[in-house]
């Protein structure tokens, strides 16, 4: 699924909204997450997962093609940790035992 398909699916369930509005909603959410990470904040979405920023120290890397040493600056990378409910849902439908009475997290 790509962003435009996500927008379409949400628009289909909300006929009173313009597709453009739904697009703005999806973008507002993603922008808010991006802005938070850019500030160095954490974004925690219970049941879904948490986004955070990890620092990578400067290091000496190598150009794999030429073998030359290159200095790589310190940088920050986004990191995502899957939420508990998401983890459970990913493994509920798949691979045989979906009959096991695993706890259904009702929040």
């Amino acid at each position: 699924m790509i962003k435009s398909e996500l927008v379409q699916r949400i628009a289909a369930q909300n006929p009173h909204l313009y597709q453009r509005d739904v697009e703005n909603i999806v973008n507002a959410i993603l922008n808010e997450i991006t802005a938070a990470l850019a500030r160095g904040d954490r974004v925690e979405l219970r049941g879904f997962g948490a986004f955070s920023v990890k620092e990578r120290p400067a290091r000496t890397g190598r150009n794999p093609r030429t073998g030359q040493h290159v200095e790589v600056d310190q940088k920050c990378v986004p990191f995502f940790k899957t939420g508990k409910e998401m983890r459970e849902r990913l493994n509920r439908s798949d691979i045989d035992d979906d009959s096991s009475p695993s706890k259904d997290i009702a929040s």
Partner: protein
Amino acid sequence: MSAKTVTRADLCEAVYQKLGLSRTESAALVELVLKEITDCLERGETVKLSSFGSFVVRKKGQRIGRNPKTGKEVPISPRRVMVFKPSAILKQRINAEPVGAED
């Protein structure tokens, strides 16, 4: 300093500010966006959100793990995991922010 945690409430507020829908409806829409993404992943489908990143479901085979407390070997059952691949734009934006640029 930057120990703040952004939650659903903040996302709802952002949607509310931007669209001018009611708070209740904004909250419901944030929930729906997350639900649609989750449903898709549950079906094993990749979700690509341009300029943000993509969520990919990977299958892991069975392997032998260890209980770190007892040191006992335990089989880890095959499972599906989800990984987030940040887009180049997201990575750029995270590094663009000057850290010590206040005062």
